[in-house]
C-alpha cells in the first residue's frame, strides 16, 4: 500500500497542473514520506542554504517573506520570532501538531506524507531564531503521523540533520517527539505547553503567559503550526522573493485548505494565498467542483468550526485575512465546511456546539457552564421541545461569553449588514466563544429555521428537559 493507500480519494489531484506547490509537492509520490524520496526531490537543501547564512540573515528572510502563521491566528512568523527576550536561555521551539479544529486535516497530511519537510522546517526555525531545543507535539489520535514522524526523526538523526554539530556545523539541536492524549483545547498554544510539561492541558492566561516571554518550563518559547514550519525549506532554498512572488502582499505564498461537506470533491488543496476566492475553491474544477447532486449552496464555514458562517453572498471574498474579518468571519485554520440546501441548519449548529461544549477544558466559567448550557438548550430545540424564550436565552448566554456585538456575515436575503470580526470575550481562550459562534451564525442567518422549531413560551405548560447524568461514582 502506498502513501495514498489511506487516502484513495485523494489520488490524482495533489498535482493537477500549473498551480505552485510549496508544501504539497511530494504528495504525489507513493514513498513521499521517506528520506530517499526527500533527498531525490531537493530535500534538506533549504537547511544547507540556511546554514551558509548567518542566523539573523535567515530570520530576516523569513520576516521579508511575511509568512503568516497557519495555526489560526495568522500572525507573521518572522515577527513572532522577534518577540523572545534577548539573552534568555534556553529557549524552545514547540511545533503545534495537535490539529483538531472541526474540518481541518491539512497538518495531518503534512506529517504523514512529508515528515522530513516539517523536520527541515523545524531545524531552519531553530537556527534562524536561535532556539535551543524543539518539541514536536502530535495529536493523540494521529497514530500514522506519529509513526511516520518518529521514523523520519530517526532517519534524520542518523543522517546527521539533527543532533550535535548538524552537517558539520557548530549548530546543534535536538527534536523531542511528544504524542498528545487527545484534547482539542491542547491545540491552544499555552495549553499545549502545559500538556508538554506533564500538566493538565488547560490554557494559561495571557498576559502574563505569552509563550514568547514565559513559555515551556517558564522559558521563552516559539509555538508554530506544522504548516507554517513546512514552508521554511522553500523560503530558505529559494529566498523570500520567490515566496512573495506568489499570492498578494498581505497574504503571500500558498496555503492549504481542507474542503469538506457537500462538495463534489472534498479534499485538501494548496491554493494561492490572497487571490483565490471561496467561489474558486468550492466550485473550481481543480478544487471542490461544485455542490453535490446539483444542489444549491446554503452556507459554509470559512475557517474551521469556530469561524462565523458565510453564505453565498460571501463567495467572492478571497483568502485574505482582512477581507474575511470585515465580512464578519475569519480564515482560521484553513478549513471550509460546505452545507447545501438539504442541510438542517439548527442540527448542523448543534453538532458544532456539542463539540465545543464537550471540548471545554473546564477552566473558566463562561465556557465550562455556558457552553454546556447552550448545547442543552439547542439540543432541546432541535428535538422540538424549545420555546421562543429559549432563543432569547441563547443570545443572553452568548452575551455572557461574548459581550457586545457579535460578528456575522451580511445577508442580502435578510437585509443584514456584516458585523466585522472579532468579538469580545470573557473566557481565557477561544473554545468558549466557539461554542456560541455556530448557533449565533445559524440563528442570525437562518432565523426562519428556528422559528418553525419552537413553540411560543405562553402555550407551553411544561418544558421537558433531559436529566443530566449523575457524575462520579
Amino acid at each position, binding site marked *: 500500500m502506498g502513501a495514498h493507500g489511506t487516502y484513495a480519494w485523494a489520488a490524482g489531484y495533489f498535482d493537477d497542473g500549473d498551480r505552485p506547490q510549496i508544501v504539497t509537492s511530494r504528495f504525489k509520490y507513493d514513498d513521499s514520506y521517506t528520506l530517499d524520496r526527500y533527498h531525490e526531490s531537493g530535500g534538506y537543501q533549504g537547511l544547507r542554504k540556511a546554514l551558509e547564512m548567518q542566523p539573523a540573515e535567515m530570520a530576516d528572510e523569513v520576516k521579508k517573506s511575511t509568512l503568516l502563521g497557519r495555526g489560526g491566528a495568522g500572525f507573521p512568523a518572522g515577527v513572532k520570532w522577534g518577540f523572545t527576550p534577548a539573552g534568555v536561555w534556553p529557549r524552545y521551539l514547540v511545533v503545534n501538531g495537535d490539529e483538531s479544529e472541526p474540518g481541518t486535516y491539512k497538518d495531518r497530511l503534512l506529517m504523514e506524507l512529508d515528515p522530513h519537510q516539517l523536520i527541515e522546517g523545524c531545524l531552519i526555525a531553530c537556527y534562524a531564531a536561535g532556539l535551543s531545543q524543539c518539541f514536536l507535539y502530535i495529536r493523540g489520535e494521529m497514530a500514522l503521523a506519529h509513526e511516520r514522524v518518529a521514523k523520519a526523526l530517526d532517519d534524520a538523526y542518523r543522517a546527521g540533520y539533527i543532533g550535535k554539530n548538524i552537517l558539520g556545523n557548530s549548530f546543534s539541536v535536538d527534536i523531542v517527539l511528544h504524542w498528545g492524549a487527545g484534547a482539542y483545547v491542547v491545540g491552544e498554544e499555552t495549553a499545549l505547553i502545559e500538556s508538554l510539561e506533564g500538566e493538565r492541558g488547560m490554557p494559561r492566561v495571557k498576559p502574563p503567559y505569552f509563550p514568547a516571554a514565559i513559555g515551556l518550563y517558564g522559558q521563552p518559547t516559539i509555538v508554530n503550526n506544522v504548516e507554517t514550519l513546512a514552508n521554511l525549506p522553500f523560503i530558505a532554498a529559494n529566498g523570500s522573493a520567490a515566496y512573495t512572488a506568489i499570492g498578494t502582499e498581505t497574504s503571500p505564498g500558498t496555503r492549504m485548505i481542507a474542503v469538506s461537506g457537500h462538495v463534489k470533491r472534498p479534499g485538501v488543496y494548496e491554493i494561492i494565498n490572497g487571490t483565490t476566492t471561496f467561489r474558486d475553491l468550492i466550485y473550481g474544477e481543480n478544487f471542490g467542483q461544485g455542490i453535490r447532486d446539483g444542489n444549491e449552496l446554503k452556507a459554509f464555514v470559512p475557517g474551521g468550526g469556530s469561524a462565523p458562517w458565510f453564505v453565498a453572498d460571501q463567495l467572492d471574498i478571497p483568502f485574505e485575512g482582512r477581507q474575511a474579518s470585515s465580512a464578519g468571519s475569519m480564515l482560521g485554520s484553513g478549513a471550509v465546511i460546505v452545507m447545501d440546501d438539504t442541510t438542517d441548519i439548527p442540527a448542523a449548529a448543534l453538532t458544532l456546539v456539542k463539540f465545543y461544549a464537550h471540548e471545554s477544558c473546564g477552566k473558566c466559567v463562561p465556557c465550562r457552564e455556558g457552553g454546556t*448550557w447552550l448545547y442543552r438548550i439547542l439540543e432541546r430545540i432541535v428535538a422540538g421541545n424549545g420555546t421562543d424564550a429559549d432563543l432569547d436565552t441563547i443570545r443572553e448566554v452568548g452575551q455572557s461569553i461574548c459581550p457586545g456585538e457579535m460578528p456575522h456575515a451580511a445577508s442580502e436575503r435578510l437585509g443584514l449588514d456584516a458585523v466585522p470580526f472579532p468579538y469580545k470575550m*470573557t473566557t481565557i481562550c*477561544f473554545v468558549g466563544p466557539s461554542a456560541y459562534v455556530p448557533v449565533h451564525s445559524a440563528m442570525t442567518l437562518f432565523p426562519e429555521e428556528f422559528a418553525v422549531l419552537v413553540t411560543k413560551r405562553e402555550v407551553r405548560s411544561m418544558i421537558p428537559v433531559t436529566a443530566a447524568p449523575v457524575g462520579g461514582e
Partner: protein
Amino acid sequence: MSDEPDNDLTNEDDLVAADTAVETIPEPDPNAVAITLNGREIVARKGETIIAAADREGEYIPRFCYHPRMSSVGMCRQCMVEVDTGRGPMLQPSCMITVLPEMKVETNTPMAKRAQEGILELLLINHPLDCPVCDKGGECPLQDQTLSHGPGESRFVEEKRHYEKPIALSEHVLLDRERCILCDRCTRFADEVAGDKLIQFIERGNATQVSTFPDEPFSSYFSGNTVQICPVGALTAKPYRFKARPWDLEQVESTCTSCSVGCRISVHSSRDELLRFQGVDTGADSDSVNWGWMCDRGRFNFESIEAGHRLGVPLVRSEAGLVDTSWNSALELARQLIDGASSIGLLGGARGTNEGAFAWAQLADAVGIAHRDAQLGDGLSAELLGVPRATINQAAAANTVILVGPDLKEELPVLYLRLRDAAVHGHTKIIEFSSQSTGITRYAWRSIRHAPGLGPVEIAKTLADPTIAAQIASGDVVLVAGRSNMAVSEATALAAVQAVLSAVPNATVLPALRRGNVVGALQLGLAPVDVDHDALATLRLAAAGHLDLLVLLGADPINDCPDADLARRAIAGARHVISIDTLPSESTQQADLVFPAAAFAEQRGTTTNLEGRVSRLNQKVTVHGTARPDWMIASELASVLGHDLGFTSIDDVTAAIAATVPAYASATPTAIDSADGVLAVNTGGGLPSVEATEAQPSGYDYRLVVSRKLYDRAVSTTMSPSLAKLPIGAGAHLHPADHDRVGEPDGAEVRLVSASGSVVLPLVSDDTVQRGTIWAPFNQAGADITDIVDSSTAVTDVRIERLT
C-alpha cells in the same frame, strides 16, 4: 483555532507595548504606579494586580479564584473590569492584569457589570442552592456576591448537574462536588502553599471535578486551610460540619499555642462551646506570622478542650486513688507540702500564658525554688534565646537559612510553610543538616546528612566548603536552631548550633523550640539557672530520692522527656508531686495533688512565640468546672504561703511583666493588640560553651534517631477525636537496605537493645531514614522508644535482636 480578536492584551503587540511601558515608569518612587480607578487618580504599586490595588482603595471587585496569598489563575472570570491602556476599554480579569502607568480601570461600567452578572448566573446554574442546609450559608462568598453583584434571577430551566454528595478527600475534609465552583483554590493551596499536591482536577468541561489520586487521600497536615478558603460550602471539615450556622457563631481573635509559631487565629463558639478555629491573615503588609494559614493540629485540637475528660475540680490522693476535693483544702495541702519541703523542683509552664509563667516564676522566687525548667530535657538551653534573634519574616527574606534542628513540617508546621515559600517563591537558599530526610529536604539548596552525634563535625566541614561559604557570604543568614534528635544529648545539639555560629558569627537565630509558650516561659523566669538545675538535673535529683516536692505545671515528663525511664523513676522518687493541668496525663495520675487549670480559650492573657512576638490570647468560653488560670493558682498559693504577688486580675500580671521584665517593656496592651504584636527579645549572654563529644563508633549496629511527628500521644491530640487516629504509632524505621539485612518482614517485631535497656518494636522500612541509623518516632502509641535512651550519654547506639 481562531484569529486572535483584538479585544484584549492577548496578542503579541501588546506584549511589546507592555514591556516598553514598564520601562517608562517615572523616577521618584520607583514602586508607585499612577492609575485611574473609576475616575479617581490612585497610586498603585509596581507589579501588583488591579484587584489588589482596588482592594486597598476600597473598591470591591467580585472574585472567587483570586487569593492574595496564592498565584492568580484568572479562572473564574468573576473579576472582569474594563481596562484601558490607551487603545480603548477592554474587558480583562483584574486579578491577572498588572497595573501600568496611566492605565484606566472601570469596575462598574455596563459592560463590566454585564460580564460580572453573567458569570454569577453561570456559576449558579448548576449550583444546588442548598443554602439552607449548607455550612457555608451565611458566610458564603457565592451568596454574598450573588446579592451584591449578581443578576436577580436565573433563566436556567434544564436539570442541574448531579453528583453523589459528599465524598471524603481525607480523614477531615469532605467534598460536595455539586457545590464546587471549580475555583482552583483548594488545589492551588495543596500544590503551591503546602507542597502536598494530592488533589487535582479530573475530567473536562462540564464534568470537571476536584479529586484525589486513586487510593491516595488528601492527607496533608494543612488540609483544613482548604476548607477555610473554599468560597462555597463544597469543602467541609468533619469537626465543624453541621455544628452551627455562621450567624450563631461568636468569635474573638487569639493566638494558637499548640506550637511556638503562634499563628494568628480566630476562635469561634456557639452556646459557650468551642466549634472552630480559623487562621487570620492580618494583611499583606502586616502579617508577620502565618499569612492566614494553620496546621490541622492547631486547627482541630480544640476538640480536646471540650473533651469529656477535662479536669474540673482539684484532686487529692487518698487510699482510693485521686478523689475530688475543694480548692480551699487543696490550697491548704499545697501550702503544707511547699512549707514542708526543703527541696522543690518546678517543671513546665511552656504550654500556658505569659502571665501564668510569670506568676509561677514570681512564686518560685518567693518560695526559693532553685530547680526550675520550662522544658523537659527535650529542647535546647535557654541561653539560645540570648543570641540575636531573627523574625519569621527575616528568615523568609534571608539569603541563607541554615537549619540545625527538628523537622519543621512535623514540629512547627506553619514555619515550614513560610520557609518553603521562601525557598520556592522567594530567593532564600536553605542549608539543612540532619540525620534523615525531612519535610524541607525537597526544598533545601543543600541537605546534608550526618550520623547522629556528628552534626558539629559535619557542620564545620560543610560550612568551610567554598561554594557554601560563598552562598553564606552573599547576604543575611538566619539559623533555625533546635533539637533534631532526642537520642542525642542536648550538649551535642548545642555544639551543632555553636558550630554554625562560630562559622557564621553574625547569623541571627530563630529558635525552633516547640511548645506553645516555651519562649515566653523561659524569658519570664522559668529558665534554669544552669545545667545543674535544669529539668534533667531535677529529675535525677528526684529519682535519687533527694527531692521533696516536684511541681508539674502543665508538664507530663513521662511522655515528653526523652529519657522516659528517668522521668518515671523521678515521679516515683519525689516525695510529693503536685500537678497543675487541664487534662489527665500519665504524670497527673501519679500526683498527690492535682489543680485543674483553665485551658486555651478559657482565659485571657498573652503569649510569646518563637520570634519573641507577644500577642493576645482571648477568652471565648467559660472555664471548665472550677478550673482556674495558672496565674491565679500561683497568686492564691502565694497568698496562703504568706506572700502577696500583687495580682488581682490578668491585666495586673500583664502590666507587671511590662514593668519588670526589660524585654517586655514595650508589651503594653495596645501594642500587644496591634496586628503585628510586639517583639520581646532579650539578647546578650550567648551560648554556654560545650564540648562536642566526638561520638565514636561503637560495637552496636545502628545509631538511634528519635524525633517528633506532628501527631503523637500528646493529650491534646489523643483527646481530639478527629486527630486521635492520625499518629503513626511506635516503630523502628530502617532504610530498606538495612531492613533487608535484618531479614524480618515489614511490621515484624524486633528487640532494640541499647546500653541502657531494650524495647520491642515493629520494623518499618522507610527510605527517608539514613543507612546505619534507626529512626523511631517519639511519644507514639506502643512501646516507649525513650526507654532505651539514656540522657546522660552523647548518642544512643542500638542493636537489633530477632525475636524468632
